[in-house]
């Protein structure tokens, strides 16, 4: 029986502008199974990073939590005080960011940054903590870890810095790792190394991972389930195979089609016309309405998430009956 280690229910995040509430994440619900990898895909501004920050209790000021509950291991965490949040972060759930240089402190040695993190959660001696830091660096495949602990972030390459970030995130044995675009700033050969490392560590440590990315290649590589977000809403959720074999939502289909593929030859790439609407003037009905080639009058009403007969859920009126259409 699959156990959900993380559950998010009806999350709504927004800000106030001209006395109007503007939602940037609108009614997002997620389930993460223990030991599995969930991908959240979407383009810039779709709310994927805000969703992940809210899971860490790290929403920037000016952005409000408006609704929703988060449970880790059946324990509700969003009602916790700032101090209690600190015990959750790092211990239960940890995060790595896109840009490893700006998330490491440039004036402290790599080792002392990892030690600081360990000591704030565990009552062990500094020496033990430093030894743990060296072990962690070894675990993430850094050569000569006992020397790297005494180096500064600028002395390391991008791939090494991302390994340090992963070592730091895993130092207190969190059950959930959130990776926000972990390979976007890296070159392809280094990206391949980091993805291999994450798969490896997941197996060794039995971690559950949420990976946030705009890159469907990364999703194909590492995820088991995928959530597609568009303009602050989930538009589709499926297993990774179903998503690639039967993409349902017109937006998901558009995304997959617009990727150049080295196996095929195309004169022109299919593209999705137009741009994502601004948060302040979202269409009242389906948010993809303006860009959708299948749009009908019905789409002026907001669609629900419909469950289809293959098990995927999709927010589109085309699938109201739950049947797949047109063999897609």
């Amino acid at each position, binding site marked *: 029986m699959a156990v959900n280690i993380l559950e998010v229910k009806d999350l709504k995040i927004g800000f106030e502008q001209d006395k109007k509430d503007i939602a940037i994440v609108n009614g997002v619900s997620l389930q993460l199974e223990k030991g599995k990898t969930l991908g959240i895909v979407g*383009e*810039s501004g779709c709310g994927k990073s805000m969703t992940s920050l809210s899971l860490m209790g790290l929403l920037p000021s000016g952005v409000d939590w408006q609704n929703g509950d988060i449970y880790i291991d059946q324990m509700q965490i969003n009602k916790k005080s700032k101090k209690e949040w600190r015990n959750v972060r790092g211990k239960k759930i940890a995060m790595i960011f896109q840009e490893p240089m700006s998330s490491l402190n440039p004036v402290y040695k790599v080792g002392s940054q990892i030690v600081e993190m360990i000591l704030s959660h565990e009552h062990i001696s500094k020496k033990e903590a430093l030894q743990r830091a060296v072990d962690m660096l070894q675990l993430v495949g850094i050569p000569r870890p006992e020397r790297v602990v005494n180096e500064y972030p600028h002395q390391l*390459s*991008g*791939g*090494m810095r991302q390994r340090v970030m992963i070592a730091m995130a895993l130092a207190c044995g969190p059950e959930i790792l959130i990776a926000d675009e972990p390979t976007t700033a890296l*070159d*392809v*050969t*280094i*990206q*391949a*190394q980091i*993805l*291999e490392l994450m798969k490896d560590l997941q197996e060794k440590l039995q971690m559950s991972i949420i990976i946030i990315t*705009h*890159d*469907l*290649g*990364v*999703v*194909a*590589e590492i*995820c088991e389930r995928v959530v597609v977000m568009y303009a602050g809403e989930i538009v589709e959720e499926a297993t*990774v*195979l179903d998503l*690639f074999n039967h993409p349902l939502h017109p937006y998901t289909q*558009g*995304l997959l089609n*617009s*990727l*150049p*593929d*080295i*196996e095929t030859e*195309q*004169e*022109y*790439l*299919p*593209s*999705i*016309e137009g*741009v994502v609407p601004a948060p302040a003037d979202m269409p009242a009905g389906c948010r993809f309405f303006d860009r959708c080639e299948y749009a009908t009058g019905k789409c002026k009403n907001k669609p629900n998430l419909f469950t289809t007969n293959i098990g995927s859920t999709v927010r589109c009126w085309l699938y109201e009956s739950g049947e797949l259409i047109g063999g897609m």
Partner: protein
Amino acid sequence: MVSPLLEVKHLKKYFNLKGSRADYLKAVDDISFTVNEGEVLGIVGESGCGKSTMGKTLIQLLTPTEGEILLNGENIANLSPKKVREKRRDMQIIFQDPFSSLNPRMKVYKIIEEPLVNFKIGTKEERKQRVYEVAKQVGLTQKQLDRFPHEFSGGQRQRIGIARALVSNPKLIIADEPVSALDVSIQSQVLNIMKDLKKEMNLTYIFISHDLSVVHHFCDRIGVMYLGKLVEVADKHELFSNPKHPYTKALLSALPKSHPSRKKERIVLRGDVPNPANPPSGCTFHTRCPNCMDICTVTPPTLKRMGEKHDVSCLLYE
């Protein structure tokens, strides 16, 4: 026989490093290639391999240290700054970051018109017609020309950058990572526009990118760079179906799968790209090469012809 539009011979760009152990950083080190009219040449490589420096050197935003750049048979390397400016009428550049490459204080109309003013082309009225024409080609409305860059999204800004590059009717466009700052759905829009414009204006592109699948889609011929050197040049199909250089093989295998059920043999390269200020001896790739031989640590390889239109720089094939 088609005569090449651009011929680059032994191009070098070294940066002086004062106070460090090495004297020079060899960002572009002895690169030669040709581009025929109407062709799209892709240049791929990882960050720090010198591909952007090469683009900027070609258009002489950086002065080359050595070598020749022949545009239509005429050497434009080391011309006087004034003469170089005239030559830029024929070759223009599109930059990666559509946010920092547009002057935030200029209206879009002025931005697109500027090259025409610079090259003293046409009267005010003629320039206006030309700006409107180009704007229409890249999908901008006349109304939008009266706005400032910050009012546009990334994809639209890149269209402005393209319009500015094309307004003086150049023959050669150097596109330096033109779509890497854009979302996938916008990326395909911009690539399609660039393809249309190529046909309409008979353009030649040098397309610099780190993204192999984009290069595969867009280019006819591809050059692979590693630490300032071209290690392999071949037709697109040849390069993807029959890669020769171990680095090219590793790059291709590192591409993420396009479908989760597709199996992939992966060559994971050890370590990182070495510091370009202190490159390894012999073949610069030998520190990461899975096929490294003893000789590779001593003798630097040169680009050799391997088959029809396929050049490789690797001692395995000597």
